[in-house]
């Protein structure tokens, strides 16, 4: 890498240049090692989905499948379990929850940011306190409540308790604070009703700001494990995270490492695509939310 010294270079200048090169090289190799360590399990998952069962666990590790089995593991996974149904459930639940949380979150956030009404402070304190209480605390009483509604083991039970998000309200309020009052007032003078102003003026202004919020809400719903685990007893109501963990156990004595890696890859694919195409929003969202913790 280091070019040999140029004729007009002093000893000292050459030495600093060399030293800089070496320190860059050390930095690069350390970072490469760290990246390898952290990237390996994901690579292992993806490549194992296309390897023969015996090869997955064999040593030494083959970086590329020696015997490429194509979509064999994917097919056998779909044969053994209703993966398609689980995939649909996960997508459906996430779509409904993200849409509802964004819309009602925007509405409440707009209400908190742009209006002054009695009880506003205490209601906003309620929203903030929700974010401080972990879900596990609510698990038992929420399940008891859902049972009373007759919603256990149903889509309603899976979807409704996670329909709205306090975090979405909080973020939307932050975004809505920056909407100029003059804009809203001019619409009022033109005689628009408050609801129309929200739908046609506030909502479009909030939409672009909510990209990272939508990604975070999607991840929260897509990755949710505990709630669908306890609510859905019926196999056909399971979501991908719940289904795949049960599925990863050996099946009729047959090893199922390959299919379980195939399902893992399928479950990670939408998130990976989001990461690739919306990297900035993805990372931004992660940082403001802290859900991954």
């Amino acid at each position, binding site marked *: 890498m280091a070019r040999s010294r140029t004729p007009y270079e002093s000893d000292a200048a050459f030495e600093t240049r060399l030293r800089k090169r070496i320190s*860059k090289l050390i930095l690069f190799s350390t*970072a*490469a090692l*760290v*990246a390898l360590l*952290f*990237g390996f*399990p994901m690579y*292992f*998952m993806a490549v*194992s989905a296309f390897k023969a069962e015996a090869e*997955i*666990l064999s040593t030494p*590790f083959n970086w590329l499948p020696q015997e490429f089995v194509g979509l064999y593991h994917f097919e056998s996974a779909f044969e053994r379990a209703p993966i398609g149904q689980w995939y649909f459930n996960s997508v459906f639940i996430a779509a409904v929850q993200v849409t509802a949380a964004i819309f*009602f979150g925007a*509405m*409440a956030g707009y*209400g*908190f940011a742009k*209006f002054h009404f009695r009880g*506003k402070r205490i*209601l906003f304190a309620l*929203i903030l306190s*929700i974010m401080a*209480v*972990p879900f*596990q*605390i*609510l*698990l*038992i*009483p929420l*399940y*008891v*409540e859902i*049972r009373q509604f007759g919603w256990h083991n149903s889509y309603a039970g899976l979807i409704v*308790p996670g329909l*709205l998000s*306090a975090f979405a309200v909080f973020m939307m309020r932050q975004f809505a604070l920056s909407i100029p009052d003059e804009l809203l007032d001019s619409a009022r003078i033109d005689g628009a009703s408050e*609801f129309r102003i929200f739908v046609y003026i506030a909502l479009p202004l909030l939409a672009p700001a909510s990209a990272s919020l939508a990604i975070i809400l999607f991840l929260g719903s897509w*990755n949710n*494990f*505990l709630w669908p*685990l*306890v609510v859905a007893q019926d196999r056909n109501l399971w979501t991908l995270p719940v289904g*795949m*963990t049960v599925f*990863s156990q050996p099946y009729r004595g047959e090893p199922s*490492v390959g299919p379980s890696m195939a*399902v*893992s890859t399928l*479950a*990670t694919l939408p*998130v990976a695509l989001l*990461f690739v195409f919306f990297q900035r929003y993805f*990372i931004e969202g*992660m*940082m403001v939310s802290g859900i*991954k*913790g």
Partner: protein
Amino acid sequence: MISLYRRVWSEKNVIARRQYWGLIFVLPCVIFFIIFFLYPLVTGFYLSLTKYTLLRPPVFIGFDNYANLLKDRLFLKSISVTLGFVVGSTAPTVVLSLFVALLFYQKFPGREGLKLIFFSPLLPSVAVVSVIWVVLLHPSGILTNVVRPLTGKAEITWIHDITLSPIVIVLARIWSAMPFYMLIWLAGLTAIPQELRDAARVDGANRLQSFWRVELPLLRPTAVFVMAVSTISAFQGFALQYVIAPNQGGPVDVNTTLGIVIWKYGFQFFRMGDAAAVSVFLFICIMVVTGTQITLGRSDRYSIN
């Protein structure tokens, strides 16, 4: 005069009436959270004072559940398991993620690409993480072969060994959590004005001194946040222990965290009262951490603003 007065009055009225719209806008959310947050939060405390098996209505028994928990072997075990998981995963995660953040804060060729690879554990859900690690931890799998030069063993039963299984679960947790905390540290580092580093340099500080005396004190709010968030999330450890450990929290309960206990009492034994009491205990633990975070984070003697 009167007409002017009336106009002012009615304008005031319009503004006052408009403010009710705020209430209308927040109402759907507020009602939702009363039903699906406040109500269960309160009934959770009530349920912890009852005997309730889902078959018959709850029977009020005072603090009996709590008294019983003090003698409950599984619950007492789960406290030490949870604390082990919290300390074992938080301390390395916080320190190592700072090191990685410092590494990627430097300039070198290939940095952005390597950083993306490092971020890849952000993608899988905790269920996927667990499933991947189950395969990595296969008795004659990758990890066994990596450490083979040291151990000389061809087979290691990682997840069925009572000493090894909590350790490998902590490893899985560190792997999946580190990129997120690295991101937070990196944001903290980026927020430090370059002038401060330059000033330290001019005053004759070397790199290490500048880090210890300038950057680290300024990173204090970040440090408090990172520690609190990772502690709180480790307190809720559940999915890794549920999926990776044999029999949900095994072998012989060495991975039975408070979260696993809540699930076991609630959904295996249907002892809702006991499960609710454990939830209240977990709630108190987490509130203590949150309270500490607020207290420590408040003194912003060192913060930039």
